[in-house]
């Protein structure tokens, strides 16, 4: 059978399968009499989602927490030994430092550039073009972005023509400057990686912020303008306070991204040149060192760092829905 036909059959059979499942449930309920039908129906209708979530997220989560207290092969209980192990390694400190750097620099710059794009593009005729271009990287995979940026950062020794865009610009604008091996130099690697993160995330931030800016009532801005306020004053005193909730949402999202950051580093440097973060360390413990104990300990540390943000999200959801 041709693979495309298989995909087509899957495409038709999945919706039909789910409908049949629900129909079968209805038939069973009818047979059993309808008393308490709603409760059983809730269980029946939620079952596919809950089974999938338990299998792929809840069970692994609990299993990881347990594994973090066991030895490398997950056999004997070692109490806190894995945690002591990972926190006495120098690379853990570097990873924590890099995660903090990501949280600080990436979050602030994504929000700031997103704000600039959203505010300025709201006042020009080519808004759609700006938005299309800035959002485009959101659709690109990390593998694709990896090729794009290793090409941008490409390095040739001084004297040779630079084929990488960044080094060509650098040596073209400052003839006295030497080209820089951006991704293979401990002083530049984190900045270079964070910039790729910016490039991939600003689109998302600007779309959310621009939706917020468009909902600012026009007459409040007009009134301030009549009172003689200039544009930057209007932005600071009228627009910014009204879009503050969206700014907070964007910053939380980006902080979570920064904490979980993995793919960009994995694809471009694999954690070399002091660019490792907690997620890349966890990954190499797991698949290179095959030490499930320490890998799980890294995962739990990451999860604990996420808990405050998680609580904040749940709180804001409760406020919204009440």
């Amino acid at each position, binding site marked *: 059978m041709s693979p*495309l036909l298989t*995909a087509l059959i*899957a*495409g038709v059979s*999945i*919706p039909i399968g789910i*409908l049949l499942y629900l129909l079968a449930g209805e038939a069973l309920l009818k047979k059993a009499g309808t008393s308490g039908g709603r*409760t059983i*129906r809730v269980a029946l*209708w939620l079952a*596919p*989602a809950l089974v*999938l*979530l338990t*299998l*792929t997220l*809840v069970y*692994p*989560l609990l*299993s*990881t927490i347990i594994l973090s207290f066991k030895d490398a092969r997950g056999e004997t209980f070692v109490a806190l030994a894995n945690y002591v192990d990972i926190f006495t390694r120098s690379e853990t400190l570097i990873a924590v430092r890099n995660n903090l750097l990501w949280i600080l620099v990436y979050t602030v710059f994504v929000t700031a550039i997103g704000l600039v794009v959203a505010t*300025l593009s*709201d*006042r020009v*005729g080519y*808004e759609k073009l*700006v*938005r299309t271009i800035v*959002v*485009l*990287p*959101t*659709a690109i995979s*990390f*593998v*694709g972005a990896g*090729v*794009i940026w290793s*090409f*941008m950062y490409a390095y040739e020794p001084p004297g040779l023509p630079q*084929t990488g865009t960044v080094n060509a610009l650098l040596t073209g604008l400052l003839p006295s400057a030497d080209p820089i091996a951006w991704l293979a130099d401990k002083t530049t690697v984190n900045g270079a990686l964070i910039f790729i993160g910016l*490039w991939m995330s*600003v*689109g998302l931030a600007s*779309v959310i912020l621009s939706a917020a800016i*468009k909902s600012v009532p*026009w007459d409040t801005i007009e009134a301030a303008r009549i009172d003689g306020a*200039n544009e930057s004053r209007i932005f600071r005193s009228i627009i910014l306070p009204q879009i503050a909730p969206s700014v907070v*949402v964007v910053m939380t*999202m980006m902080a979570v991204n920064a904490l979980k950051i993995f793919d960009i580093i994995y694809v471009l440097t694999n954690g070399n040149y002091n660019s490792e973060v907690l997620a890349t360390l*966890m*990954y190499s413990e*797991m698949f290179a060192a095959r030490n*499930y104990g320490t890998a799980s300990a890294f*995962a739990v540390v990451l*999860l604990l760092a996420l808990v405050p943000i998680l609580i904040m*999200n749940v709180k*804001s*959801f*409760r406020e919204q829905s009440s």
Partner: protein
Amino acid sequence: MSTKALNPHAQARTQQRGAASLVGSFSKHATLIVIMAVWIVPILGLLISSFRTPADINETGWWKALIPPYRFTLENYQSVLERGNMAQAFINSILVTVPVTLIVLFVAAVAGFVFARWNFKGRELIFVLILALLSVPLQMTLVPILKLFSSWGIVGTFPAVWIAHSGFGLPFAIYLMRNFFAGIPEDIFESASIDGATDLQSFWKIGIPLAAPALAVVGVFQFMWVWNDLLVSLIFLGGAPDVAPLTVAVSSLLNSRGEGWEVHTAAAFILMIVPIIVFFALQRYFVRGLTAGAVKS
């Protein structure tokens, strides 16, 4: 989405003219143009390079290709596609992506409908727990799932990635669908149930058609995530050519020694072309999904 003529912010901006606003206007356009350039140049550079000869790519920057005489070539694409497994990898990507997208769409629609419309004990608690699952770092789930799947003997087959990807995509999809169904006025469903519609009928015949825009948003996002994913496919499918999707095939091409830039650029563009087409075709839904996901994270 306001057009230029309807946008009061843009209109009022053009009404006021003065020396100060001319300077402001210049810096505004300059800032936007610089940002657009920084965002588009990396993609443009890759696209142009992928049509240059290997010698040209290695000797000069891609911008030199814009100066006549033009020497563009399709050789790079030919040599990538001739590697045989690229066509198969493309089909594998479809085989991974289409079923996952459909599973997530329908399972999330059913669950979102239940959370939005039915009152039952523990509704809020379960929903908040699902919301919390959004923050779980994917990498930490991989080993336990891998162990489970190898005991079932499905590692390296499509069902393994279907299950894994569907589970990972569900929290966001359920969240979005629930919000959408909660926004539909109650009386639409009430009048249907007075007319004797069962729960199933009101879900299938009223809920699903009304939810078409939300389903489009979830579908576009799920499609992009799965198509662009490397890690999950790498771990649950592996690199065997008969199952490896495009991301896995391209990244192994990138990692193999002795491949030049010309192969990298063409391979990367082949990988990017489907998401970019989907992006341009469904940009409206894509942007709407980004805004709807604002409370996600």
